[in-house]
């Protein structure tokens, strides 16, 4: 009898703990239909096992009442689920077109050489798994690198090398737009829906995200009816009180806005009508 190709899951020594079983069930219970929990459940398996293991697959199958084959189908479809153990830090270099053109290709080559690993491989000391990733929705910060799915914006080959060296040396490394980096397993646990306490770390937004807003502030541009420069915490808006009567104030405001825009509308017919424009 031929055996299935040995390219997938390798054996894991430990069984899942009682706690993990309980947490897997907890995830499933969040949804009207339990099977919806499977994606976060597999994230939890990864946070415990360092990868998706056959035991993890069987546990998910048993809890959800589906076959292990069906769970395997899901576990092999999504790129974040890994079958080989992942290092402490998953370093993803975006090599989709924009980032690649902006330097991602060079960064990836440099890291491969520096870490002496290929794509989706882990360094011998188990600290870094390097992978090239697809567009991670930070194109205005290109070239982008992700470490355990935290943004490391505007990288160069040198800066990328510095990041991985610092990580390997055990130094604290911060996301450019987030908190101090945690381990891959810790990250996977958050993805499974068990929050850590780091939401308040990091800024609201990075510089690129604020570029347009900054220009609007400079030039006093607002949406119709808005105060130039934007509202701050010191200027509560009319509708902030939460009492039921607040909608009256809302309506007045919007009526005012409508009136203003009525006047503005007239300019469409005005061949020279550019006074309202900047």
């Amino acid at each position, binding site marked *: 009898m031929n055996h299935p190709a040995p390219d997938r899951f390798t054996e894991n020594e430990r069984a899942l703990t009682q706690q993990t079983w309980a947490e897997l069930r907890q995830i499933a219970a969040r949804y009207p239909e339990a099977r919806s929990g499977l994606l976060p459940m597999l994230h939890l398996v990864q946070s415990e096992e360092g990868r998706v293991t056959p035991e993890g697959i069987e546990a998910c199958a048993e809890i959800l009442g589906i076959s292990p084959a069906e769970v395997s189908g899901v576990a092999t479809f999504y790129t974040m689920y890994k079958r080989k153990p992942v290092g402490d830090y998953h370093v993803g270099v975006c090599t989709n077109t924009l980032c690649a053109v902006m330097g991602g290709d060079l960064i990836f080559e440099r890291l491969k050489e520096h870490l002496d690993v290929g794509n989706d491989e882990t360094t011998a000391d188990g600290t870094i798994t390097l992978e090239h990733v697809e567009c991670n*929705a930070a194109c205005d910060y290109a070239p982008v690198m*992700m470490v355990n799915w935290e943004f490391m914006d505007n990288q160069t080959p040198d800066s990328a090398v510095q990041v991985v060296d610092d990580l390997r040396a055990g130094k604290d490394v911060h996301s450019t737009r*987030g908190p101090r980096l945690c381990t891959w397993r810790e990250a996977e646990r958050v993805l499974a829906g068990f929050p850590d306490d780091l*939401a308040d770390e990091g800024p609201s937004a990075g510089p690129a995200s604020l*570029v347009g807003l900054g220009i609007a502030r400079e030039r006093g541009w607002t949406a119709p009816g808005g105060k130039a420069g*934007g509202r701050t915490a010191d200027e509560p808006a009319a509708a902030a009180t939460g009492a039921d009567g607040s909608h009256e104030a809302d309506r007045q405001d*919007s009526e005012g806005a409508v009136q203003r825009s009525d006047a503005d509308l007239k300019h469409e017919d005005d061949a020279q009508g550019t006074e309202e424009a900047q």
Partner: protein
Amino acid sequence: MKTDTLTPVLTDNWDAERSWTLASYEGRGGYGAMRTALGPDFGGPDAIVQAVKDSGLRGRGGAGFPTGMKWGFIPQDNPKPKYLVVNADESEPGTCKDIPLMMASPHTLLEGVIISSFAIRANHAFIYVRGEVLHVIRRLQRAVQEAYLAGHLGKDIHGSGYDLDVVVHAGAGAYICGEETALLEGLEGRRGQPRLRPPFPAVAGLYASPTVINNVESIASVPSIIGNGAEWFASMGTEKSKGFGIFSLSGHVVRPGQYEAPLGITLRQLIDLAGGIREGHELKFWTPGGSSTPLLTTEHLDVPLDFEGVGAAGSMLGTRALQIFDETTCVVRAVLRWTEFYKHESCGKCTPCREGTWWLVQTLARLEKGEGQESDLDMLLDQCENIMGRSFCALADGATSPISSSIKYFRDEYLAHLTHGGCPFDPTASTAFAQTGASA
């Protein structure tokens, strides 16, 4: 209607201190629209749907389908529970507006979720966010937690009699899950492969129940529509593309970033605001709405960036993901890399996408290396014709866009690879650090 060139609404609080917190958001008037919408005098769910219809809001996730009309498709006489699903799977190359929005102000989205769920009479809402953005997920989890504590979520919200539960659901890495039926599959714990339509999600979506799926930006726009009125929203934008949108500029401009403006602004205006193309270079090609939209060139600098304008120019507005490339960029390299992306992300369900992208990559790779011949270009176009419109979903269509449009505008560059025996461009010249001299 003359509005300001940039109209910050969704981005307006991104520079506020700890803008992601409930305190900051409410301090600026946040959740006021929610109270209005859920209050006894607004007119209830139907009035909200009507307001959104009147505003002219069109889906901001790329397709541009009128949002209010989509909500109106939900059959309210159907006994099954209704669901609202937010598509926060932002993965279209070049698109980077939803992620910073959720990072900076998740409550804007959440307030929109509450109003929208109320409008379609859903008691369960799900935010399907791609798994590769850990901090965004933290902020969303935190916002949901704060909202429950403040009584904006849960049972009998502020005495309105309305219950709503929100679940933040992390994906696990699949571009195809941005397609709404594939997203539903992922949300149901399955492989993210698109479903047959009909039945449409409005009738049989999540758990075969009536479901509305909307993009983050679409839902995030709802509070401002309720707060300021449909006419206010409609006073921005163009005749058929109303309202504002976040335009994401990336690539070879001096100041890449997010620019929130009424629909209809032009690339020329945006590049101007962004400080122009980087010093010493000039615009060569760009995408209006991500890699799945056909490329445009300097010919199109004055095309109004709304649905109709870009459509008339032979492309699609999509997600306003303006990737700007100057003359140091090899088009063939760019297109090959995008095609590799589509091949990697193809779910595999249908033949033309699964096999087509496999083949397209091999053909393009050969051309990029300078091997092959000119007739390969015609073969590529024929492959694209056999893929476009023949596949199960639009991913494959998107895969053909860069190829067919680049051959249309840059056929000579392909041929140059053949005569040159490889790529005639220097890949370091296009990097962000080329001019600063950061070493490779």
